[in-house]
């Protein structure tokens, strides 16, 4: 029994040792390709576009027992170089792996063509060091494909070795309609003239403007979605809280007033930070978008609660009395008499609140929600140009301007019907006056005129 066990354990041990050896090659004996990458160069996107300058990076690690005297990197067929293409080379000294240090003064000569890059090192790259080779102005063919970069190197013994292919190709897409249009646009004379002015260029560069539209539109949809989910959620919550604010029980009034005052008394920006940094500690798996619209909804609910409360309290006492005198209880009175009247009155203020909330979605950019502001920021940073923000402003206005119009239409309508609702005979009696009522003269208080409850 024990023999069997020992045998099994020995076998396992051997297997384990073997797998460890395979997983961790002891040390690099030869120049090892660590990565081959290219910088994203799609306008507003995350792809590498062919036929357009990018930066090709090759990184490798010199073997422990060799020096590298020459590196040859072969480019795939069809690659091109921009007129201002050049090489950036850096050797990184790896003596202390926690504190690698660059050496910019590596003595070398190089020859850069469409087919290859040949670098000869005067003193050789030292053992164990890292080398970073970057070709600026490098263009992949404008054909969608995966490209592998191959090469060779020569060590200090004069032996030539094949560079190991990097496991992952560079995925290139062959240009998009938008990219082609942008190239065409940037070559127009009027665009060049416009952009030659520093102010026009940074605020409304036509190429940057067009380039940012597709991503900003995506962001705009997210912003609209945030508020389209957040606001409807805020309405019932806000209504509930407005009821609590008017409750007969002091504890409910107290708690709801804390809620309303804390939320209205602190900046939304701060609430967003607390929610985004705090909530994940308690609730896991909530994505940024969900957290985002929930924070917006909670914030808005406090404002809506006050809007609703003001709306309900502006309904004349006579309406409550009339409903009560017909035997309707509090809940029925609220739902069938008060709220329907309140809704009409609060629509303009609610719309304003909607506009505010829509604009406030931009604050979520600070905590990494990918809405329009975030995309505008990214776009602006890529190009060190303000144009994407100006385009984003246009997208915000696309929502806010028509809604502002809606508000004024509603307000006009409300003013008009209010005027109409005061019966003609009431209009005459604006101040207290002594007049004949029926058979007798008596004083009619002005208040009765407003008592129609239609206000």
């Amino acid at each position, binding site marked *: 029994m024990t023999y069997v066990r020992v045998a099994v354990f020995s076998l396992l041990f051997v297997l384990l040792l073997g797998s460890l050896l395979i997983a961790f090659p002891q040390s690099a004996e030869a120049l090892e390709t660590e990565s081959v*990458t290219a910088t994203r160069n799609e306008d507003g996107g995350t792809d590498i576009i062919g036929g357009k300058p990018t930066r090709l990076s090759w990184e490798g690690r010199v073997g422990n027992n060799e020096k590298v005297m020459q590196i040859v990197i072969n480019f795939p067929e069809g690659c091109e170089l921009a007129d201002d293409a050049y090489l950036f080379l850096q050797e990184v000294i790896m003596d202390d792996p926690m*504190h*690698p240090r660059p050496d910019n003064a590596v003595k070398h000569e190089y020859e850069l063509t469409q087919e290859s890059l040949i670098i000869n090192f005067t003193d050789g790259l030292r053992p164990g060091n890292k080398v970073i080779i970057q070709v600026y102005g490098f263009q992949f063919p404008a054909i969608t494909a995966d490209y592998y970069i191959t090469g060779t190197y020569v060590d200090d013994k004069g032996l030539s070795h094949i560079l190991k292919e990097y496991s992952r190709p560079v995925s290139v897409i062959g240009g998009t309609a938008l990219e082609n249009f942008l190239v065409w646009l940037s070559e127009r004379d009027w665009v060049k003239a416009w952009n030659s002015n520093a102010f026009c260029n940074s605020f409304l560069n036509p190429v940057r403007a067009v380039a940012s539209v597709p991503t900003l539109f995506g962001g705009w949809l997210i912003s609209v979605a945030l508020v389209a989910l957040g606001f409807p959620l805020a309405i019932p919550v806000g209504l509930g809280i407005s009821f609590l604010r008017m409750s007969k029980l002091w504890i409910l009034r107290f708690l709801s007033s804390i809620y309303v005052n804390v939320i209205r008394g602190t900046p939304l920006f701060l609430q967003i930070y607390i929610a985004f940094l705090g909530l*994940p500690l308690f609730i896991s798996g909530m994505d940024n978008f969900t957290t985002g619209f929930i924070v917006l909804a909670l914030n808005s609910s406090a404002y809506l609660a006050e809007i609703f409360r003001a709306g309900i309290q502006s309904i004349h006492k006579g309406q409550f009395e009339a409903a009560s005198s017909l035997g309707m209880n509090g809940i029925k009175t609220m739902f069938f008499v008060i709220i329907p009247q309140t809704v009409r009155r609060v629509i303009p203020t609610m719309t304003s609140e909607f506009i505010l909330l829509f604009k406030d979605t931009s604050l979520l950019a600070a905590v990494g929600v990918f809405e329009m502001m975030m995309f505008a920021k*990214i776009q602006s940073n890529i190009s060190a140009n303000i144009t994407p923000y100006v385009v984003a402003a246009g997208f915000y206005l696309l929502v806010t301007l028509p809604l502002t119009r809606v508000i004024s239409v509603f307000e006009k309508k409300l003013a008009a019907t209010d005027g109409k609702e005061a019966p003609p005979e009431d209009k005459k009696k604006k101040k207290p006056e002594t007049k004949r009522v029926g058979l007798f003269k008596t004083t009619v208080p002005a208040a009765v005129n407003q008592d129609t409850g239609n206000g």
Partner: protein
Amino acid sequence: MSKFKKLVAVTAVLVLALSMALVGCSGGKKLIKDGVLVVGSDCDYPPFIILDGDKPVGFEMDLMQAIADDLGYELEYLPPQNFDTLLTTLAGGAKMDIAVSSLTITEDRAKSVDFCKPYFDSNQACVVRGDSPYTKAKDLEGKVVGAQSGTTGEAWANEHLEGITMKPFNQTSEGLMALQAGEIEALFFDAPIAEYHLATNYPTMKIAEVIPTGEQYGFAVRKGNKDLLEEINASLDRLIADGTYEKIFKKYFPNLEPSVN
């Protein structure tokens, strides 16, 4: 139609006049205010530059002060602003003379600003929670990671790691809080700043890997501001030669070799 044309014409004239005015006031001048070097920073990079109360302190601050003393300038610090807007503001030309914010010299940034000579060697760090199973940057492929918006850390992760979801933050400290909260699996930022944070405020985190990127920090000035660029470079050379630079360096990084000598 003629009304519309008139409107367009008037607008065009206004825009041109305004742009001339804006460009005119910033063109070619060495300093925005005579004798004063206006410095912009994010002030979020201990121990390089960080706010102590409302005063920026740190290695870069000391170095900048030494340069200002050497050149006989006053220093004026702008209120801290987000890193990703720093170079845009500098390039705008109306507010800032020099950006001091642990700025890595890159070819891309050099298209919009000019860099003085480097004064610090840096790398990227992949920072994870202490209990994290990830031991190198590549392990984070396909995961949700973060970086400060507009930094070299963000660019490195986007270029080298496949399938990541990148969450950009305004400040590194926000990223660290998000990492602690489990919102992201790793944060990519400058290694020396990571070392400082982990040694002081975030002992529960660890550096999974230092990524040798060979990057170096440099002060940035407006593109084409050759006068200031040369003055600063000459001053840096003097400070290196007379040992002031090394003194400041050792004050903050006693265990490191000075980056330039």
